[in-house]
């Protein structure tokens, strides 16, 4: 998987309430509608700033808080191609893989707002075209690579009828 776009930078401990507020997520299953409100409490104009393919780049503990799967889905439906962070909260991390949103653990201090990035997940390398540098990616656990390669947990279940990691 290979993505190109610019960086939208956030700090540490971006929780799922900030990604998509509870006041919206209980009302609808229309993820395109939820996507309009993504990151709203941190940056009210975020949705309109995203060009398809762009990246959310954050500090540590991205996605902490509630288990709402609307969080990775709202990011995905806002046309963000991947989230890059120093670390992720575990439920968000599972939910992102299960729903097919790539999550990339790396040293995000080397990325500034607006930097043009190329993320090559297969090679495990991020190229910062603005700075002319490369950043290594922490590999995903094998189980998660299998789920991501199947397109998420739902296609994995459709294929195998249950969990199959052999």
């Amino acid at each position, binding site marked *: 998987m290979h993505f190109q776009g610019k960086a939208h930078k956030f700090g540490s401990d971006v929780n799922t309430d900030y990604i998509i507020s509870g006041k919206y997520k*209980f009302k609808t299953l229309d993820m395109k509608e939820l996507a309009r409100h993504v990151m709203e409490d941190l940056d009210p104009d975020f949705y309109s700033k995203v060009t398809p393919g762009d990246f959310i780049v954050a500090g540590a503990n991205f996605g902490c808080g509630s*288990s709402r799967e609307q969080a990775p889905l709202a990011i995905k439906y806002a046309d963000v191609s991947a989230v890059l962070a120093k670390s992720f909260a575990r439920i968000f991390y599972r939910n992102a893989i299960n729903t097919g949103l790539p999550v990339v653990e790396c040293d995000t201090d080397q990325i500034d707002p607006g930097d043009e990035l190329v993320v090559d997940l297969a090679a495990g390398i991020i190229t910062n075209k603005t700075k002319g540098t490369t950043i290594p990616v922490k590999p995903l656990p094998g189980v998660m690579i299998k789920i991501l390669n199947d397109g998420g947990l739902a296609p994995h279940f459709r294929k195998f009828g249950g969990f199959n990691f052999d």
Partner: protein
Amino acid sequence: MGQTIIEKILSAHSGQEAHAGDIVVARVDYVMGQDGTAPLAIRAFDEMGGTAVFDRGKAAFVIDHSAPSPNEGVSALHKLMREFAKEKGFRLYDIGEGVCHQLLPESGMVGPGSLVIGADSHTCTYGALNAFSTGVGSTDLAGGLISGQMWFKVPETIKFACHGQLPKGVFSKDLILRLIGDITADGATYLSAEFTGEAVAALSQEARFTIANMAIEMGAKAGLMEADEKTFDWLRRFTDQSFNSVSADPDAVYAGSREYDAARIEPQVARPHRVDNVCPVSEAAGKSIQQAVIGTCTNGRLEDLRIAAGILGGRKVHPDVRLIVAAASRRVFLDAMAEGIIQSLVEAGAAVVTPGCGPCVGTHNGVPSDGETVISTANRNFKGRMGNSNAEIYLASPATVAASAITGKIADPREFFK
């Protein structure tokens, strides 16, 4: 090689000796979803080609987060849940029955050694019953509903040894807030926390739930305690089922341990907008509040309401403060009525809302206005959590919230225990 509590529970449910770092596919004893997560799980269930749930007696949906429904969008999703549960033949707890994390323990289906997944991050609450229970998302919930299994990376464990006794006016909420303040919001990410020591043993079963409930606020996958007679006495009120308690081996391997002297803990508050922004109440005292909330899966149990009524009884809520109370379940509500607790709270000026999540998650039941300050017994104070990003939320024990509701300012509850 010795095992921690979570390694033993995952071993028993996966049929292999599990140690930290292993990936296991484990059998689950119960699967739960609530109205913020179940609708997406129903969609995932269909996408997975699911037809039936793995065991109709081991699954439940709970309508608690926006209950009763505040608008037609929510109503449509509630209807979807009711129809799905009816069609598949498993239990749905409808509006007014309570918060999922009170209802599952009251169902008698969860006890020592159980493995539970719930599509709600505070599913870690049942760790207080010596169960491994953890929050998952909607797609994992759908996978669990279909297969009765879940994959896990076996976590390392961090031990919190809490010695001594909490002083008068200081509660389990204060203890867990202090622990979270020290270790920070991601200090236990991917880890299982074990809470031990005589201070934990001295707590009632209800008070223990408050600690396990907030393990997720330090990033933990689970927050476990050993079972004792109090645990089994509590369970016997709800079930005849027998459970075998699970203890860590003396030579179990831990990722770390922290020691606390409970006698030195003061009442604590978490200041806006982070759960780990914790200080002694004295440092926040005097801050004016406009709303106070007593309830939620953290502190909506009978003992919590009893403590609040002990302070509020015969007094009045400050005229500039709205006090909102929600019992954690219908049973708690009924017990609190029988004991006169609800009478005391209402006479003091409380607005009592439907048993459930109350205003905690910002959908209804008390959304604060711009510039207002709320003090709540809930577990999260993120900006916008209660539905308005221009409001501030402080977190504290039921005693501190009750004392603050009377005073109109954040107040030290120990004044009321003299």
